[in-house]
């Protein structure tokens, strides 16, 4: 027993003496490879925002309620089929058939405390909201929007295609809330280049920070219509960066 104990002891010293950093490097490399591999994997696959950031175009300044602020514009559209293309440009790099999608990108950037005028071309059909509360325009200037030129406060909750609903990340600007319902295109010939509604509205951006927008009309698959495009990054959800 005693003999073996001494062996063990001397063994320890011997090992620690000729301890090579090779194994340590190896383990470190393995760990780093894990991180990089998984990170790259996700960045390149469905999790990436389809076409990068759209920065709002500045069109000078404007005065609202006696406050002078920059005025910028955003322009995007809602398409019925994410595999389609507009003027030869694919709407989504790897879209799914029959998945609706916001195009051409789902991440936008606007300056803080500015008047943002947004133009949305809505090509998709629609149906009933699971909560009529979202059929009312909320948070825009005057609480109104223009649908094909007409001023409206709300639309028919049973003929809604999508909504553009924005709230700030926690702690950024809890008061900020924007909900714009997008009316459905009637008929049966909806396509990525077919008939559409043009919706125009303005809102005053809040504090600097990250804002999340998504669609509140259950246009997805699976339970409650919130799977598929609704649950997958880059289709019916995105970010609004206020800088």
């Amino acid at each position, binding site marked *: 027993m005693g003999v073996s*104990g001494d062996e*063990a002891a001397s063994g320890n010293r011997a090992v620690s003496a000729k301890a090579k950093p090779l194994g340590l490097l190896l383990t470190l490399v393995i760990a780093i490879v894990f991180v990089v591999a998984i990170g790259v994997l996700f960045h390149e696959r469905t999790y990436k925002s389809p076409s990068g950031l759209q920065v709002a175009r500045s069109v000078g300044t404007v005065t609202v309620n006696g406050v002078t602020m920059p005025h910028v514009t955003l322009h995007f559209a809602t398409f019925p089929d994410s595999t389609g293309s507009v003027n030869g440009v694919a709407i989504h790099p790897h879209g799914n058939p029959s998945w609706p999608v916001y195009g051409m990108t789902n991440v936008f950037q606007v300056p803080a405390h500015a008047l943002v005028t947004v133009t949305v071309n809505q090509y998709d059909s629609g149906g009933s909201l699971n909560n009529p509360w979202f059929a009312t325009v909320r948070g825009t200037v005057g609480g109104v929007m223009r649908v094909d030129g007409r001023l409206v406060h709300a639309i028919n909750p049973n003929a809604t295609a999508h909504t553009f609903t924005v709230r700030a990340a926690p702690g950024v600007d*809890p*008061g900020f*809330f924007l909900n714009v319902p997008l009316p459905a295109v009637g008929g049966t010939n909806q396509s990525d280049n077919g008939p559409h509604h043009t919706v125009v509205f303005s809102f005053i951006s809040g504090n600097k920070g990250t804002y999340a927008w998504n669609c509140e009309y259950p246009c997805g698959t699976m339970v409650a219509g*919130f799977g598929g495009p609704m649950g997958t990054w880059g289709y019916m*959800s995105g970010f609004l960066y206020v800088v």
Partner: protein
Amino acid sequence: MTSGPTVEAAQGDGAGVARGAGDAEIPKPLFSRPAGKILVIWLIFTAIGIVLALVVPKHTFPPMLTKEGDTGVTTVIFFTIMAAPVAALVYGIAAYSLLAWRQRGQRDEPPEDGPPLRGNAPVTIVWLCVTSLLCIVLLVWGLAAMAADNQAPPGALRVDVTGQQWLWTFSYPGTGVSSRSLVLPLNRPVQFDVTSNDVTHGFWSMSLGVQVDANPDVVTTIYATPNKLGKFTVQCSQLCGLYHSFMYAPGAVVRPGAFALWLYANGASLRAASLDAKVKMTRADTATGQVTAAVGATPAGS
């Protein structure tokens, strides 16, 4: 290896018999010499535990705005104080075993055997009784607190809470008001009827001390009685998909008057607002621009 067992046996015999004999005369080790020092360590650890119990929650919890929240905080403090002595005893003996009984010097060979202490009935029984007693105390406390929280209070304000991916909406039956922010009057019990439009969400506000899941097509009810003015946040506590992180709602506890004004500003009739807030409100009051100010977090949009 060949000589392994014999060597051990020798050790066993030599040490074992001596130790065994030496220990046989001490039936209750707890009353033997080390007890004094362990008592000191135990007292120190207990004191630390109690101090932590009194200091940490006070400085880390968000301000509690309801009776239920206060109950929760008191429970945490009380339980910690109850648990501190037991934890301290384990820590004390473990620490003492390292300080006093550690084998010093030659650490490459196994030390000689310790006393063959295979158990100690009195100690076990005492330990069992103490832990059981603690259990019962905790249980009684918990049941009492639970009973206090769970009765439907008379004259409660009803709020229908609807969760959906990934927003909350709060509607006040009888007023037609429906909002994304939760505004509650002071010193008035509230009954939350919680449900969901799609998947399971968690209606949770730490400041209100309420948490209950929002289940699709089922209504779950929970009560709270705000007793302080202030702002709070309602947060979805049950992972609900892509934007779970963004599923929160601003809220505030305000005076009944301000509550009535807020209802009115969000589309309730003068009468309905006054009824729901249990105040007398005239059109003159509504002219004062106090609404958003009183409500604070409430956005103009909703």
